[in-house]
């Protein structure tokens, strides 16, 4: 389907650029966008890499910064920054747990929605959009209010029903409380995507499976899930990357605390570079590692998703 433009008479001698553009007609359409994205991503990334090799601190003149080689990275990797490995660990743990739970719950909701036709469906789907529409930073604050151990709604209900109260944002529970908010916010996201997928699966394979007497579990695992492979990987990709980058919710709910209990990688960057510490060089090294982790995870999932598409 490659488009070949006819060689125009007199096309020679107009220089390699016009020649190139005529042979590659797509270039003039995508070049502006690619150039803008290059400026907005590659240049800042190179700048970030350079900064991470210095001891630059917030407010310094750039000339004061000294080149320190890989010292910032060595400090991270050899345990000189005790919170770093903890941040890596809880970021990855959060990504795996949040993505897994949201995928499973979202898929179940989608299956339930798809099972029968009823009038309330439009309303339920409308409600599912609300958590995605709410400003995350403000929604996070509302959850913080509900989590409050003294006057929060959740403990008010728990005290009334079971006479217990829970310190939701304590060192032990804060991670799980943030997980609850994330699941609340993004289960509908997965469910909406999966529901759209279920609706577009053709009916024939189901009919023949029914004739063969396959049970519902068998149908789910050997027809529905394989047919939705592409979509499942897509949802997985979008959720995993987002969960790995998590910032808003945790920043608003705990600021990484108590202690370092919820200091995810992006919050660790924040703690190093914020106005009190201002350790831009060291923070940049953590940011580079965050970037690398996100890139690797998204590459792997993109590869799987594209392979799922071809299959």
């Amino acid at each position: 389907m490659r488009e070949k433009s006819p060689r125009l008479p007199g096309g020679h001698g107009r220089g390699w650029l016009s020649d190139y553009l005529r042979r590659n007609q797509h270039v003039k359409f995508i070049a502006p966008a690619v150039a803008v994205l290059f400026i907005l991503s590659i240049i800042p990334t190179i700048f970030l890499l350079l900064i991470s090799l210095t001891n630059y601190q917030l407010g310094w003149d750039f000339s004061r910064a000294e080149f320190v080689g890989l010292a910032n990275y060595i400090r991270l990797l050899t345990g000189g920054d005790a919170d770093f490995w903890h941040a890596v660990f809880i970021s990855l743990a959060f990504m795996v747990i949040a993505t897994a739970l949201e995928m499973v719950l979202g898929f179940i909701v989608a299956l339930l929605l798809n099972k029968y036709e009823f009038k309330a469906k439009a309303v339920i789907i409308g409600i599912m959009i609300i958590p995605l529409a709410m400003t995350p930073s403000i929604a996070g604050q509302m959850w913080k209010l509900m989590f409050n151990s003294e006057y929060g709604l959740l403990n008010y209900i728990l005290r009334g029903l079971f006479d217990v109260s829970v310190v939701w944002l304590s060192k032990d529970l804060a991670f799980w409380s943030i997980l609850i908010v994330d699941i609340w916010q993004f289960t509908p996201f997965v469910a909406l995507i999966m529901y759209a997928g279920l609706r577009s699966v053709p009916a024939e394979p189901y009919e023949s499976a029914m004739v063969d007497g396959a049970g519902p579990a068998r149908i789910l695992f050997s027809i529905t899930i394989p047919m939705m492979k592409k979509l499942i990987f897509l949802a997985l990709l979008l959720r995993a990357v987002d969960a790995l980058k998590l910032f808003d919710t945790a920043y608003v709910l705990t600021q990484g605390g108590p202690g370092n209990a919820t200091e995810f990688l992006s919050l660790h960057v924040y703690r190093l570079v914020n106005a009190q510490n201002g350790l831009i060089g060291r923070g940049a090294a953590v940011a580079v590692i965050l970037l690398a982790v996100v890139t690797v995870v998204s590459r792997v999932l993109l590869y799987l998703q594209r392979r799922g598409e071809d299959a």
Partner: protein
Amino acid sequence: MHSKRQAKRAAGKTGVLILLIVFAIVEIFPFLWMLSVSFRTRVGIYDPGNLFGNLTLGNYQEIFDSGILKLFLNSFIVAIFSTLISLVLGTLAAYGFARFNWKKRESRAFWVLSQRFLPAMAVIIPYYLMGAVAGLLDTRIWLIICYIGFNLPFATWMMRGFIEDVPRELEESAMVDGCSRLAALRKVIFPLVLPGMVATAIFCVINCWNEFVFANFLTTISAKTVPVSVMTYLTVAGVKWGEMAATGILAVLPVMIFAIAVQKYMIRGLTFGSVKG
């Protein structure tokens, strides 16, 4: 036998409906709670069970008096300009990806998409320092530029899907009739993908509207947007929950109106145009 099966089916349906209703209640609850808090007095907030006592409009009055409209204006301007620029560049690129075939097309397209995955907390350091050097910190222009970084990949992918929906033959016949490619793009494709462009624009606006990280670290006073307002409600005298909730309600209303307007394209929007549900 027959009626027994029917009864079983009806029971199953009721069970499914109950589960879904429970799910819907959980999902809508924080919103309803925000609505409730936004009408409460400062004392009322500390008594969660007292749902209908001491209702007030004071929180809304308070945020208007303290100049929330300026933040809404900033959010609006940033969202509109960032969206317009992203939409123009993105539609052109989408046309390139949809209508031409070259060896590295899919790799290039995925490179564009992957720009969307850049973690905000990683790029915020260079954006902050570059903004400081250029004297652009706390300006709407800097925020508009930063938001193009995540809107442009989205717009490109969304518009690619919409353009691929238009049969190639339509513009080819226009080109046979003597239209140049750009004229065919303007006269044939553009009118047909216009609804898709509007939907894409609305999703871009929503993304900007709710963005927190860039807005929080790149603005201080004059370019501050609505999501950042939460930080100003955390005062030494305690958290102004009521004002915060009122701001949240005002912020979510336009998004919900927009969401209803684009509900037909909701799934496309959530999946970067790759699901045409």
